[in-house]
């Protein structure tokens, strides 16, 4: 029972905050913050002033003007530059462990503690 509640609570929190993360700011900024500047060392497109980043921002703006939604823009960029360009890896068979492993560890640790301590 305790364990069930723990697991449920975690999924609730995760779901909740994925909503939160989609908070509003300028759409181009929001998208470009999630993109790696491919020619820089560890900078996002948003933070970079390189030619690549600048043309990228224009590209994103054009796509928005065409009426594409975020999902479509990311898909387009991924097909063009590969998964490498997004900082927010989607969940698929390659990345499922990346997302789930920390959660499993948390649940596992939580169970361990609950078993060791006495409730009374």
């Amino acid at each position: 029972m305790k364990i069930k509640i723990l697991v449920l609570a975690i999924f609730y929190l995760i779901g909740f905050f994925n909503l939160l993360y989609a908070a509003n700011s300028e759409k181009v900024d929001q998208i470009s913050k999630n993109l790696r500047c491919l020619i820089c060392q560890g900078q996002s497109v948003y933070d970079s002033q390189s030619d690549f980043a600048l043309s990228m921002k224009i590209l994103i703006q054009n796509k928005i003007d065409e009426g594409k939604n975020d999902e479509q823009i990311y898909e387009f960029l991924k097909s063009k530059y590969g998964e490498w360009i997004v900082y927010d890896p989607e969940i698929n068979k390659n990345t499922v462990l990346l997302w789930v492993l920390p959660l499993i560890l948390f649940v596992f640790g939580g169970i361990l503690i609950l078993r060791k301590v006495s409730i009374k």
Partner: protein
Amino acid sequence: MLNQIGNYSLYIALLSSILIIIQSPILLKRNNINVSGRIFSLISIQSLMIIISFITLIIAFIISDFSNETVYNNSHTSKPLFYKISGSWGNHEGSLLLWLLVLSIFLLIFTITSKSLSNQYRILTLFFQEIIILGFLLFILFTSNPFMSLFPIPNEGTGLNPILQDPALAIHPPILYLGYVGTSIIFSSSLAALISGSVNKSWAKHIKNWVLVSWIFLSIGILLGSIWAYYELGWGGFWFWDPVENVSLMPWFCLTALFHTILILEKREMFHSWAVILSITTFSLSMSGTFLVRSGILNSIHTFANDPSRGVFILCFLFILITLSIFIYFFYQNKIKNNFTNTYIVSKETAVLINNLFMMFFLSVVLIGTVYPIFLEVVNNDKISVGPPFYHKLIVPFMIPFLIFMAIGPNFNWIKDKINKINLQQLLFFILSIIVSFIFLKRVGISYLFSLPLFVASFFLFFITIKDFSVKKTNLSQKISHFGFSLFILSVLVNGVLAKEYSSNMKVGDERKFLNKTIKFESLKINENKNYQSLEANFKITDKNNSINLKPEVRVYDQPQTITSEADIESTLYSDNFLVFNILKNDGFYNVRYQIKPFMIWIWISIILISFGGILSIVKKNG
């Protein structure tokens, strides 16, 4: 000449290391021999030799001795003296020598300060520490020797990466290394305590200081790195979840967990094996950190010197150390007392366990996020990037229960407490936090539905930690650190929510409106400096009441040729004004980024407060 002195002293240090390792088992058998005899002199000689070699390297940098390959690759005669000196550890070879220096000095301090403890424990600690020192000596001498000679001697060096020519970054590595290397003592001594069957109160009491010292240096080291990233990298952020940043954060989580566990071990004789496991993990993470940064495996903005072949050596060394410690752990594990019997769910002990659970979770998120892409690429050649969104999504939701636990946990009593301890007073503070967060978010105009829980939790912790100052029960250092942490979370949140940014292409004389301010590009001038030219802009920012002038620069360094932008920041207690500009290709126009960052300075102050709590705890005990 200098190269020879450096080389020879390192070889003598190597020899002493081997001698100590050979002699320790013999000394262990003869129980009543005092460590302060021959072994102590060997350790002193070793430290002295390593100090000499380090000073030699610094001298080589100061006098620009280009017969030394490291100096040739990383220095230049036109560099200011300060950066000539800091350049000696701003490169791969020198930074490893610094690691070694700290290792041996820490061992010397350990030997001197542990005289009251059992001989067996001390010798075993020395033994493990010397194995680490030996590993580093071999690594330095055979793969990364800072004293390689060049012939013919070049006239001029190639210079230090200009991005590193900065005061914060000059002292950042030594401070961070003090933290990293401090964990080696914790590692060695936990193994020694394990073997000698003395994982107990007195061990906890002794090692607590080392845990604190490493933790303080690590915290300050991370702080310096963040401050540097804030004003030098030019995007106005201070943390990018960059692999190299993550690598310093991982041992921090582990040390924080270890420190809390050690407190319980000291007071209540519990969690023995967990403390040992954490000690081993902390050091493994510090070593892996060095490995990951130095090997060039990570794609990161901070990787200035890298060479994969060296990585193989550290990887093997790390593998040996970890295997060795796991082996020792399982072999001697039965010597550890284990009593979990008297733990109740509402007690200080459980509160610490919950703290540890969260620390381990944050650690696992950062660890998996950092290493996973590397493994994925090796396994099936897929390249993925794991960046800020990933970490935020996984860490932020867990922050809420964590902050609430952190607020109520420290007020629990030992052994067993009543559940109705979550009393009226706390409830009132909780309601107050809801009201404050609600009003705040409403005024700011953020969709409070989603941000509200996070703000409530942080305000709750903030109020409770302030209130706790009036309670006599807990100690002052804890209150300061915990208050510092609540302040940190709150400043980061408020900063994140209220930060405003404006970006535009401007030329001299242009004026732009932003919010209620006017940004005017007044002038541009060229300055000649010792080793760079700078383009200094003058911006005037006016609002209703006052005006400030910000003078960001673009620097063109000649050795090696690099362009850097220096932001100009005006800090007040309420808000930072951050301005940076870049050269654009089309004539006359510059890309200007202006940011208003509220409460920025409180992020730095809060981290200083967190560390100060630790310092106070050491001073109070010894004074």
